[in-house]
């Protein structure tokens, strides 16, 4: 084929890729943190015995999980302004990814909540704790430990979804790579390096999550 790999252009613009990666991580961290708060509230709502609480939560999770995230991203960026909601592109993407994370994390947390024996809640009640105190001191800490392994893959998947921000010109990693690609025509080199950055970052996230898991493991 006679194609010679030449990474020079990519290395020259490597700072742009790193800046893009930093923004990708920033988008992911902020969205996932907001999403975790949403997910926690929704998970409790999903497991509520009151239908008026459980139904809206189910509707939210069902709606979000059955929409492609790209559609949500485009809707938030192009359609919301028509409805009078004006967000800049970063804000609109964070809003979408937070809502999206919320739905997925809600399902993860819900499974975690269901795995906690009812007896622990009763033991908490028996010593006079209020339901709120039981949630904060017993249920949530145990639930988070239970779901760390499955949360790890959800978080990695959400991090990768930040690449969709490129479609609305948020200068994250994929957008930065595309820019270098277009300007240099070094297609293969650019995407190899961008891919490598994604792979390494995801591996680091996974390692970090395993570390947290180990740190928090209940001794037995």
């Amino acid at each position, binding site marked *: 084929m006679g194609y010679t790999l030449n990474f020079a252009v990519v290395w020259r613009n490597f700072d742009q890729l790193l800046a893009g990666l930093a923004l990708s991580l920033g988008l992911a961290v902020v969205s996932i943190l907001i999403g975790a708060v949403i997910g926690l509230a929704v998970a409790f709502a999903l497991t509520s015995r009151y239908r008026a609480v459980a139904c809206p939560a189910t509707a939210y999770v069902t709606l979000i999980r059955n929409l492609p995230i790209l559609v949500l991203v485009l809707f938030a960026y192009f359609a919301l302004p028509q409805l009078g909601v004006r967000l800049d592109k970063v804000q609109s993407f964070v809003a979408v990814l937070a809502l999206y994370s919320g739905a997925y994390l809600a399902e993860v947390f819900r499974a975690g909540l269901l795995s906690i024996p009812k007896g622990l809640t009763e*033991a908490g009640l028996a010593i006079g704790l*209020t*339901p709120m105190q039981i949630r904060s001191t*017993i249920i949530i800490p145990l639930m988070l430990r239970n779901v760390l392994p499955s949360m790890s893959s959800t978080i990695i998947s959400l991090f990768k979804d930040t690449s969709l921000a490129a479609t609305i010109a948020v200068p994250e990693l994929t957008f930065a790579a595309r820019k270098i690609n277009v300007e240099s025509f070094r297609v293969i080199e650019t995407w190899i390096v961008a891919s490598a950055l994604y792979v390494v970052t995801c591996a680091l996230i996974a390692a970090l999550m395993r570390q947290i898991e180990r740190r928090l493991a209940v001794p037995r």
Partner: protein
Amino acid sequence: MAKTILEIAGLRKTYGPVEVLKGIDCAVHEGEVIAIIGSSGSGKTTLLRCINMLEDFQDGTIRLDGEEIGYHVDASAGRRRKSERDIARQRALTGMAFQQFNLFPHMTAAQNVMLGLVKVKRLPKGEAHAIALKWLDRVGLGDRANHYPGQLSGGQQQRVAIARAIAMNPRLMLFDEVTSALDPELVGEVLQVIKDLAAEGMTMLLVTHEMRFAYEVASRVIFMNKGVIGEEGNPREMFLAPRTERLAEFLKTSSFN
């Protein structure tokens, strides 16, 4: 007669169409150790769970030191459940130990005992820790304070659970089949702890299948049968000369010999 701590009148509890408690009347006096026996499904555990509102009940009253547990009963407004906050405060007045121990697995033995002292009684951590250590020591686990439940045997876990309940200084202790989930060789250590507490004058209600233990420790025995109190009296009369056919039959099939 000693002071009445607990007064149950006309207690009824239904699960849907099934009536589990069909009108229970009973009074518990300070320092009494009451063993509740009966076959499974007779309502003995449900009775215990109503006393600290782990189960709602549909009719009747339970009074602890004269205060109505769980519900406001008032002639004009009828009957309504008290607020969660009120019920939580009332639950702290009774201690409960469960069949499955139910220790919080992410906390050490000491932290398990401290939790209620810090969160419910609002004691400073240092003081709570000292009380926790004192009670762990009393149940023979002073050297296990920093162990997690997963690092303890069943018998040790149950003793921590008892320490957790007793440390709250309850008016009344409820024991719900606390030895049923234990290996036979671990039953003795738990019964010994209960025996010591009884000897110190702790008022307690024990749902138990350990007939020999009930016979030795209880000051009174209640035999539950199909949601009502079938027979009650002192253990000697009850075990050696049951008045009802039902109790005689139950004792024949149980381990008391």
